[in-house]
């Protein structure tokens, strides 16, 4: 009885000389929602397409539901994919789109129609079964694409940036719908996106990739709280983490931030004195302080207010972005009193960019 629905071990892929996927090890539990996230060109789509069989793997093993699937053609893998462009068959009605996979397998017309109606009810498409894709809105097309996947009852769902073509409000709504559907069906889902917010809010397990390598994988909050390296730290969380070059103080119990002028912050653990490193501070962890407990006083460069929050950029070298959760009346040129909990410091080796324990 396999616990993992999909297992990738030592997977490598080359396009000619280009090493697109490097030593990928990934185990996906049955019923979990896994997000593959990273900047363009990191290999997330390649990885997804390799799962589907649309690309071949150069080395390593791909096992789906206990069976080794290297070299097995896509139509035998029993995986369903929702494409970024939806790939709806334009010359078929919604119903025909849904029943296509069933018809290819020889399911009877009545049975196929019944299933289509069933799925359409789940996704709210019952009224649209007779329409053609060109007559539908973006959100409706997206749901048809998902319904087409659902009707197949596959071993896993693969999503290739399905929300990128939708406007922002619809994206937020569809995020919840997709996750809700996943839960309702008890499905296993692999979801590719470049948007870390989508990954963080939807997934049980997030895989951050860069240049063909898995930089870190784990639960969303794990990646947020303890990023393994500078790249993951800067990628997860919005606005992005601030990075400041720094040096451990002479006593080994504090660190001096080099912001043009030096600012000292306490450490929770002692480190080798004089060591140079990079300190990461999330914008939301710099909190407005009263005059008494302000550990940092920083000059203000610019101020932007959204009504609910205030974004302050400091006039330091490097600049720090601060997110304050209230309306603050402060102006450029003034000094901002801030408090920083030492537990919220992220420390990275300056050379390797890896997290210091």
């Amino acid at each position, binding site marked *: 009885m396999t616990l993992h629905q999909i297992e990738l071990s030592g997977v490598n892929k080359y396009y000619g000389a280009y090493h697109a996927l490097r030593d990928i090890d990934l185990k996906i539990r049955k019923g979990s929602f896994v997000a593959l996230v990273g900047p363009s060109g990191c290999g997330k789509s390649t990885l997804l397409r390799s799962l589907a069989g649309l690309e071949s793997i150069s080395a390593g093993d791909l096992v789906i539901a206990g069976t080794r699937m290297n070299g097995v*053609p896509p139509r035998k893998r029993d995986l369903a994919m929702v494409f970024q462009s939806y790939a709806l*068959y334009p010359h078929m009605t919604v119903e025909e789109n849904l029943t*296509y996979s069933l018809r290819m397998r020889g399911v009877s017309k009545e049975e196929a129609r019944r299933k289509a109606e069933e799925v359409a009810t789940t996704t709210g498409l019952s009224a649209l079964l007779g329409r053609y894709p060109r007559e539908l809105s973006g959100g409706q097309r997206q749901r048809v694409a998902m319904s087409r996947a659902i009707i*197949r009852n596959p071993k896993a769902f693969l999503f290739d940036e399905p929300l990128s073509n939708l406007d922002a409000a619809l994206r937020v709504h569809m995020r919840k719908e997709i996750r809700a559907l996943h839960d309702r069906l008890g499905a296993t889902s692999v979801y590719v996106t470049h948007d870390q917010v989508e990954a963080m809010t939807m997934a049980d397990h997030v895989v951050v990739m860069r240049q063909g390598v898995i930089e870190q994988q784990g639960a969303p909050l794990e990646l947020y709280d303890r990023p393994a390296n500078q790249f993951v730290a800067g990628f997860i969380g919005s606005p992005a983490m601030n990075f400041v070059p720094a040096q451990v103080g002479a006593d080994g119990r504090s660190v001096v931030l080099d912001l043009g002028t030096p600012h000292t912050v306490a450490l929770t653990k002692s480190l080798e004195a004089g060591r140079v490193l990079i300190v990461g501070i999330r914008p939301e962890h710099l909190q407005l302080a009263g005059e008494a407990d302000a550990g940092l006083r920083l000059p203000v460069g610019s101020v932007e207010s959204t009504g609910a929050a205030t974004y302050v950029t400091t006039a330091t070298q490097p600049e720090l972005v601060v997110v304050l959760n209230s309306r603050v009346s402060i102006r450029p040129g003034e000094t901002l009193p801030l408090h920083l909990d030492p537990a919220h410091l992220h420390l990275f080796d300056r050379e390797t960019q890896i997290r210091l324990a």
Partner: protein
Amino acid sequence: MRRLLLSIRDGRGFDIGLVSVPLIFLFAMAGLPLLYNIVMSFQEVDMFSLGTFARPFVGFKNYITLFSQPETWPILGNTAIFVVASIAGQFTIGFALALFFWTGFPGSSWLRGLFLVSWVMPGLVVGAIWNWILSGDFGVLNFILKESGLVSANIFWRSDPNFSLWAVVIANIWLGISFNMILLSVGLSAIPRDLYEAAELDGANVVQRFYTITLPMMRSSIGALVALGLIFTLQQFDLFAAITAGGPNNSSNVAQYWAWDLSFRQYDFAQGATISVIMIVFVMFASVVYVRSTRHEVRG
């Protein structure tokens, strides 16, 4: 009107000027002759009355004469055979080639261009070459057929009434392959790749993908191609002039060659005009089908 003329450099007059001059030219050079054809088919025309416009009006006499001649129906039949056989041959071979090159192996786009050669060559030259290839005693086609065991004796393509039409059909198929292939290639590449991927994931094999995705989505291309094929095949003249000249005994004669022959060999301009009118009606019909299956867009 004055305003229009003033706006010739700028504004609506500019557009109207640019379009109306060529259209007037086309109307004069193509529209008027069309009408003239119809007029002449109702007149009695001979060598002496060529110079005048007012010729005796004879009603439908030319049409009746035409259809009472023994060669009329066989020639029309030949025309139909010629069209159907040519289109069938060009289309299947063109489609097969288009599919073959669409797989996109390295070198495919360059090699595909080679197949366009027949389109730029003068029809007479193509006809002359095929005339020689189809020669009964010395033609290389007969040689190849005999060597491969497909036939036992020479086929006299040009002089045997049973084969003369097919001689021109063969040459015409060769000629039309490039156009068919290009048009179908364009249609094929308009189908988004991810539709095939989706179909593959949905469980369709190669044959199923061809019938459920490729063919239905090519419907308008195929419709346009068949209509255009009809139009261009009915325009084919040079091959007939170069290979069989309609003979022997009208066995390879087709309507468009016969119309010319009636006017310029037999100097029976009235009959020439009559058959021209009949054929033009058919051609117009096909072109309406073509126009309907093409799409037009405006500039981005």
